[in-house]
């Protein structure tokens, strides 16, 4: 498993800005990005747009984006708008291995 070279913690306030930053970092990254959603309780359309942008860049560069600690309500939103299959989800607790099942939950990755 490749090492994670970018790790971003999202706070609900300013999340759109943070996600845009993440997209920029992803543009210069080589392998993987992990975005920590543990502090995010709810998302709106703007966040969704930013997440979609992130997914677009990841697709272009064939890079993997992991969303960590996404709560089930936000996960449901991503499922409903069909964004979930474009990410790998990892739990926020434990240090278990990540799997590459896109659009579904996996264990926490090795950092």
């Amino acid at each position: 498993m490749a090492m994670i070279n970018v790790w971003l913690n999202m706070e609900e306030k300013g999340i759109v800005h943070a996600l845009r930053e993440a997209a920029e970092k992803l543009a210069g990254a080589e392998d993987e990005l992990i975005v920590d959603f543990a502090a995010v309780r709810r998302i709106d359309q703007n966040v969704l747009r930013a997440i979609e942008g992130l997914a677009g860049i990841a697709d272009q560069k064939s890079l993997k984006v992991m969303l960590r600690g996404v709560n089930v309500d936000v996960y449901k939103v991503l499922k409903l708008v069909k964004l979930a299959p474009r990410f790998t989800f990892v739990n926020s607790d434990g240090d278990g291995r990540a799997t590459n099942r896109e659009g579904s939950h996996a264990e926490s990755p090795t950092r």
Partner: protein
Amino acid sequence: METSDLVDQRARALSAPETLSEERIAYLESLVSQAKVAAAVFTQFNQEDVDRIVKAIVLAGLEQAQHLARLAVEETKLGVMEDKVIKNMVATEFAYDYVKDKRTVGIIREYPERNLVEVAEPIGVIFSVVPITNPTSTVLFKCIMAIKTRNAVIFGPHPKAWRCGFEAVKIMYEAAVKHGAPEGVFTCLESPTIPDNAYLMKHRDVSLIDATGGRGAVKAAYSSGKPALGVGPGNTPVYLEKTADLNASIVDILISKTFDNGTICASEQTLVIDDEIYDAALKKFSGLGAHVCNERETKLLERSVIDPQTGCMQPMAVGQKASDIASFIGLSVEPNTKLLVAPIQGVGREHPLSVEKLFPVLAVYRAKSAEEALKVCLDVNHAGGLGHTAVIFSRNDEIIRKFAEVINAGRIIVNSPGAIGALGAVYNDLVPTFSFGCGTGGGNSTTDNVNVYHYLNIKRVARRTQAHMWFRVPNQIYFNMNAVENLRQFPSQSTVIISTPLLEHMGHVDIVRRYISPQTHVHVLFIPDAEPEISVVLSGVEALNAYNADQIVALGGGSVIDAAKIMKLKYESPQADLEELAAPFLDLRKRVVQYPTGKNHGARLIAISTTSGTGSEVTPFAVLTDKKQGRKVTLADYSLNPDVAIVDPQFVMSMPKKLTADTGIDCLTHALEAGVSNYASPYTDSNAMQAIRLVFKYLPVAFEDPRNEEARTMMHNAACIAAMAFSNASVGVNHALAHAFGARFNLAHGRANALMLPHVIAYNAAVPAKFMPSPYQRGYLAHKKYATMADLLGLGGQTVEEKVKRLIAATEQLLDRLEIPRSIAELGISREEFERAVPELAKIAFDDPSWRSNPRMPLMSELEELLWKAYEGRGLAKPAGEARAQTT
């Protein structure tokens, strides 16, 4: 709520949609995309969020009620501005009053007594078709419903009413977003076209179509393949019955039929008036500002407002004032005429005014009787109004009930205005709505007033319920030596003893007779010692009637007691149909056929058993033989239970050894099967376990030393105790197989059970190929319960598996000790004969109800395998002497 021309136009267009330009498709896609995202985001909102937004948009709608009403009238040229203001206010304020306290997020209803909880799931994106007749009020109402249920709506207004509809959506949207609703939660088509509707109705991201419109729109919605709420045109029949309050009724009709110039599809269309009040009613109409047409005027009206080609209303009349319509067609009326009343002679195409008329023209019909009136109303109902609305004015509850029975309408409005009455919450307690479900009569999926619950997927969380169980046995059981003396305490004028000649010969009948009160007339009825035939039962019932028996004493084995149970049933309830009572059932409490509860004579049944096996003296079962049809009929119901059981070992002291062994093993099988049954309970377990212990301890003694009073007593008790267990927990696959091959090879029931017993224990103790569904048990327990039985018998063993093996071995040793053949082959049945019989035996066993409570569901192949194991005999685990049961 749709004018006829547009109905046809829409229907045609939706069946063959025109091609949309790329730009238009991109526009429609953007609406869907916004709505989809909004709906997804909305799922995160809680009830408080939602309620806050609902209140805000309701206030916004109320604030703009007049503005929107004015826009609607200006754009559509239909209806009355003042009435549309009322409509807009009802659509907001009354809707709010209904929904404000309703839970629509998360858990919305709980039924603790049923362990059921209902949880709301939003629908997602709704495409909502809005009619020209109510272009703003419908929008206001649906916006409130959508926010309350966390859905996003794309509105498709009528092409001739889209500007006012768009404005209504805009007002509600801005208020909603301002108070936190997701962006894109409402969108509205600009310059809508029919192909737009067709495109959106079939869009994969649209989850529901709510089509408030005419038949064409509804049909298109239902044809789209999407879930749809569709409402449609009506044709409201109104019956003005002779007992009605005439003054009030006429005013109500005028209010309704002139409201918004008659554009509400629930408004009155054809008024059927009883002959007795017809003239007075028309006079009142005239007096209150209506114009009653003469024959010439009616003809003129027919030709003018109804299209002779289609038979539908002319668009020029829809939503117009009565005086304007009159003026337009050259009819001379007073300037402020509210309504044109046109007498008609019938219903149908030859009577053009009998159709839906969304303008202030009311057809009236004079009925000679209530019967005729109801028929004419039914005709109107079937002339385009099925499932919609009907109205009756009457004080006669019987007539109102009959009207409601015969007329197919989702809303039957009584003694109030149809149009406003149907909207709900104003004149009655109907749910407020602007969409009337018309049921299957109108091609709809519901007859409800469409409201919030139609905008939700309601998920039901069904927690496992604690299944009710039972333990039912006779009221009184007397046991131990000379228990028969207790007969003395039962007063009787006339007692019939049912027994067999053999028991009479053995002196048992005399013993019984001795303890019946000397004042009692005692009669003895001898029957053959075999499973009772119907003819025997019927002759027994004749005897009971002849002697007017108030007490029946059954003295004998299972057959005699079974016969007495059925005789008592027929004696008390002569109408009991034994054939029907034998109908199969899965759950005693849900059975289709209920046993009669008649007590014509109130006779007492006392059962005294003379064998120690069946336990029939305490069971609710009876087997009857129907020789004519060559079959057995099994009856099962707790009403068959004897009232008193006497378990007196003096009647079994002389049982032959073979009978002792066979009946004793029958008793053991009852206990073992009840012990692992899916119907087992702590109550039946206690009986089953005790019976097993008694059998292992005393059966060998009773067999080897028949005069041993203690052993006989305990075995007699064991049979009764085991029977109490299986009366309530039932038996299992052992009995099903034993019934099948015992009957086929004419083998005693106990012996047939014995041949299966070790194999069935091993079978039930293994992991089932197929588990048996049972609400009464949690997990698979049979192997553990066998292990408990082994512990009770002190068989030793460390693991469950070891204990089960030891129980099987102990059972085999017991069978050996009782000199019971250990294989079907030993009975002299050839392999070839058995091989031929096995498939049929398996089928018969599978049809036997006995196994329904078995812990493991038997497959046909498994039944055959068990039969073969019984044929071959030994081969099961047979550990050394340490597995011997502690029988002393």
